């Protein structure tokens, strides 16, 4: 059953969600940066960089200013109860986005690819990006991720088999292309990175599957035992590359690896890698029985 929506109230709740996403990191992300900092050797740039990242997060939270000046593409995944109007939700999200842009919580980032003109309010074709999914629950859950351009530029897609990498159409092949992608990225996506992997699908759903993984908690474990094992193996081996924070060298190259799958046609085997920077800004808003929860 649809929940009753008061448009003005929901708009300001979504505005608060945007503020939270732009100016604060989730506790699981902060914890993983803290842990990583403990593991780096004393006196190395890697250790002090991680310390500065944490101080920057504190400063952004205190001053209520964006953690990074690139507030990125705004990606919404909305789960809604049956009967809710997604058209109405879309309009409310757009209004909240405009307001957040006016108030310098978001940088105007929507550029028309043909004319090169910046819309000035973060609205445009597919901006913000919204993915709607109806579910059987009676809650409305809105997940928001801000994904900057630097890390998006080092994301990518492979088509298996890949003979240069000796990567076949199996999990071992997936392992190889992920290692290659992270090595090619070096520090450029503002390492340490968080790696979302999508196996299968067509080209588009493969990327979507990879990005969806970035909404998972860093501490969770994949329900599929084979994938859980691959996530752990990749996490360990990617950190053995020694790229380190910002590519200065060190033990922390990634903070997590999350893998998901989508059925594919027999002829295609895509693997997509969504690289997320340390400024891993994602939060959610849940509304149920009039109760509002942010996390």
């Amino acid at each position, binding site marked *: 059953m649809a929940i009753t929506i008061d448009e003005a109230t929901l708009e300001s709740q979504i505005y608060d969600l945007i503020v939270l996403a732009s100016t604060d990191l989730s506790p699981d992300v902060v914890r993983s940066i803290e842990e990583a900092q403990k593991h780096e050797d004393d006196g190395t740039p890697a250790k002090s960089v991680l310390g*500065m990242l944490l101080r*920057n997060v504190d*400063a952004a939270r205190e001053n209520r200013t964006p953690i990074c000046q690139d507030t990125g593409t705004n990606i919404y995944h909305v789960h809604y109860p049956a009967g809710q109007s997604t058209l109405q939700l879309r309009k409310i999200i757009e209004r909240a986005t405009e307001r957040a842009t006016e108030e310098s919580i978001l940088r105007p980032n929507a550029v028309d690819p043909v004319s090169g003109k910046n819309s000035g309010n973060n609205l445009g074709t597919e901006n913000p990006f919204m993915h709607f999914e109806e579910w059987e629950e009676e809650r409305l859950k809105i997940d928001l991720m801000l994904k900057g351009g630097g890390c998006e530029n080092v994301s990518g897609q492979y088509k298996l088999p890949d003979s240069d990498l000796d990567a076949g159409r199996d999990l071992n092949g997936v392992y*190889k292309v992920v290692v290659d992608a992270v090595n090619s990225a070096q*520090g450029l996506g503002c390492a340490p990175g968080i790696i979302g992997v999508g196996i299968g699908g067509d080209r588009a759903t493969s990327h979507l599957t990879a990005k969806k993984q970035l909404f998972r908690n860093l501490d969770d474990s994949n329900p599929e035992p084979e994938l859980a094992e691959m996530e752990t193996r990749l996490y360990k081996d990617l950190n*053995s590359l020694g*790229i380190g924070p910002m590519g200065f060298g060190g033990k922390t190259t990634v903070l997590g690896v999350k893998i998901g799958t989508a059925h594919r046609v027999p002829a295609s085997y895509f693997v997509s890698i969504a690289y997320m920077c340390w400024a891993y800004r994602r939060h959610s808003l849940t509304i149920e029985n009039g109760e509002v929860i942010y996390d």
Partner: protein
Amino acid sequence: MTELRLPTSEEVVRKLKVGDEVHIFGTMITARDAAHKFLIEERPDFIRPYLENSLIYHCGPVVKKKNGTWSFVAAGPTTSIREEPYEGPVMKEYNVRGVIGKGGMGDKTLEALHDQGGVYLHAIGGLASLLAQSVKEVKEVFMLEEFGVPEAMWVIEVENFPAVVTMDSHRKSIHTEVKSKSTEQAQRLIHPVT
């Protein structure tokens, strides 16, 4: 931790080695794509005193104007490699002692750092709040009308601006070293000897 005071000198800069963490104090100037092209093609004299023995910061800031005074709100580094064709010639022409950006630069710039006595300083990507706080004063701005806010040349006074030397005047680059080591390791993982 080394303190780097601007303007500096060739002698001071030649002592800096890759891996050194520095805190920068003094006056420097932002420049990115449009400004680099302008410096090479127009060779403006008015800018020379600002660049002499100072640093260029690859940055497109978010700025605010209040009561006629500019300030920086967010000021992280932008990717430097786009300026690779211009950087060496700019450094030589204006006697610049180094550049600050992110991601490192290529062989041509590394060679110019060696010839000229200069360094590449890597600022921390995404450190927008802290870096904006290091900018104590916006002293002047050039080409604002022509280039727009992100591309204009902002003359800024910084204090305690943190960066790491990742390319030095001795032809050493952390970027090349890290990449060659990580690629060796990646090869071992991808093509294990069985």
